[in-house]
């Protein structure tokens, strides 16, 4: 005979296949304990209450157990119990649609009012349990994800320079004609030999018409060597893997969008999910980022240049990793210092309210920042009289960026 096990906020229950109540184990009437028990059951632990219920039901001749929670079913299986998973189960739906009545009928509470208070208290306790330690760990997961993303970029760049050199033996001119790595890899995978680079074939791959014509013409006149089928296959298989890495990268980016919305929505509102995640990673966590003054946030990621400046008395770097923000790299050079300061100031406020339980103020912060940017742009339209010396750091960033875009 089959019994379905259903968990509620006040106990766990076993139902027959006809949805009649077979056995019940009520939780002690203490919201804190109940919250702990429920949380444990959810994570798949066979707590005392569950063990007791299973024993009682077995005695009545039931030998198969249906669970709504797959984790729990797995654990029960380990104890040599035959299980099934149904989510949601009919019995479960029945209970949930009449929860108040059920609570009164099983004698857990005297009336509906008492039940409402109970549910309120239990959900409060569960939420409190979850809040404990939740943020701190999630931000470290984000730090790992953004580092994975950066690793992916490096790997992709590495493989793609190999692909370009390798395929370049056959069709060297293509390197200059197709800048984007992803497009380059896709063309080789889809078209293969340069003979196949016809206008129609290229247009089918979403290459714009004039570009297609240019590529096709160059292919015909190419100076490259011929390529054996077997050699081409190897290059194509590498291209395929690179395209998979792009897919992985895209997923990681989407994941980071959601995760940042959850963990640091204020920081995300100001600098976007990726740069925000990078700042968290460099700081070793959200709380660490939030403890930093704006002046430090401004140069995060430029530590080497900063220390050099401190030692030699040279001009300190104006900005670190936040330079990746479009506000900065699109700004006029002489405005950058001021913009970086404004951006870092807002970031500091955002990080604090994310880390220390503040509200969502991202939209307001962003509006303020944009106003300030407008002021800076208007006030400092002309470069200052004495030309500034370019700090080392800045040059380095630009170089990196160019390499990356390719």
């Amino acid at each position: 005979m089959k019994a379905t096990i259903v968990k509620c906020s006040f106990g766990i229950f076993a139902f027959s296949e006809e949805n009649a109540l077979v056995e019940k184990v009520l939780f002690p009437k203490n919201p804190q304990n109940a919250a702990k028990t429920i949380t444990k059951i959810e994570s798949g632990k066979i707590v005392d209450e569950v063990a007791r219920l299973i024993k009682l039901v077995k005695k009545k001749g039931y030998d198969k157990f249906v669970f709504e929670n797959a984790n729990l079913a797995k654990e029960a299986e380990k104890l040599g119990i035959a299980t099934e998973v149904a989510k949601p189960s009919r019995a479960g739906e029945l209970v949930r649609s009449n929860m108040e009545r059920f609570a009164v009928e099983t004698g857990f509470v005297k009336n509906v009012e008492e039940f409402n208070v109970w549910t309120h208290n239990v959900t409060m306790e569960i939420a409190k349990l979850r809040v404990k330690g939740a943020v701190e760990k999630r931000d470290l997961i984000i730090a790992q994800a953004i580092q994975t993303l950066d690793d992916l970029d490096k790997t992709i760049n590495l493989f793609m320079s190999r692909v370009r050199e390798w395929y370049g033996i056959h069709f060297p001119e293509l390197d200059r004609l197709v800048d984007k790595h992803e497009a380059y890899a896709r063309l080789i995978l889809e078209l293969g030999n340069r003979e196949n680079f016809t206008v129609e074939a290229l247009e089918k791959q979403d290459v714009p018409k004039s570009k297609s014509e240019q590529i096709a013409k160059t292919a015909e006149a190419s100076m490259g060597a011929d390529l054996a089928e077997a050699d081409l296959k190897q290059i194509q298989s590498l291209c395929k893997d690179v395209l998979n890495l792009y897919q992985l990268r895209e997923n990681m980016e989407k994941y980071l969008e959601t995760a940042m919305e959850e963990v640091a929505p204020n920081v995300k509102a100001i600098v976007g999910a990726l740069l925000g995640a990078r700042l968290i990673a460099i700081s070793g966590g959200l709380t660490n980022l939030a403890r930093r003054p704006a002046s430090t946030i401004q140069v995060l990621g430029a530590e080497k240049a900063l220390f050099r400046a401190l030692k030699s008395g040279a001009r300190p770097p104006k900005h670190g990793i936040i330079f990746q923000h479009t506000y900065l790299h699109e700004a006029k050079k002489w405005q950058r210092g001021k913009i970086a300061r404004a951006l870092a100031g807002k970031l500091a406020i955002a990080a604090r309210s994310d880390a220390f339980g503040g509200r969502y103020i991202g939209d307001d912060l962003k509006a303020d920042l944009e106003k300030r940017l407008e002021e800076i742009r208007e006030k400092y339209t002309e470069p200052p009289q004495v030309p500034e010396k370019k700090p080392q750091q800045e040059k380095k960033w630009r170089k990196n960026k160019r390499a990356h875009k390719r």
Partner: protein
Amino acid sequence: MHISVKPHPQFPAIYQVTLEDGAQRLATRNLTPGRNVYGERLIRFEGVEYRVWDAFRSKLAAAINKNLKTVPIKPNHTVLYLGAASGTTASHVSDIVGEKGRVYCVEFASRAIRELVNNVCAYRVNMLPILEDARFPEKYAVFVSGKVDDIYCDIAQPEQAKVLADNADLFLKKHGWIMLAVKSQSIDVTKEPSEVYKQETKVLKNRGFDIEEIVHLEPYDKAHAMIVARFY
């Protein structure tokens, strides 16, 4: 000028306040006298305490100010609130439904829910905090007893309409109502706002909703709209 409070001509449990300087504001009757939630002003009038409802902080208030015709959330209702954050709007919803009503507050950011739990739900028995992801409604089904009258959704995420419809399938009464705050930027930055609203309403229609109305929330919120729809 003296402060005066009068009931909203259309919506039960919502009030209109005229401040000292003649400015008009919305308000709800404070379920927890003496206590505010997000720094909003408390006002006493004829022995009753009201909380001024800031339309720049709450999209529901903004929508009402923008002449929303239907506010389905009423006294004694049970409301499922997705994306409760730290409770700014949810606390006014709690005021409206009153002691006999109930508000299930789903929020997945522990940072936001901390405040919701300690500063809001702790004092409001009709508000239940649920720290879960709205995309997985089965996970909190144990705490929602019976079906709800209304679902309010403000999660600022892609696929909001789908998430809302999934929750409606599980929890919403037949003929129940939904309110969906659409932030156009969070769905697809490349599209024009009105394009996004159209797309979201299409999803709702396909999932069995009749669109009642859409109001834009400018100037209270840029690129935001409130969609009100009914479930069939």
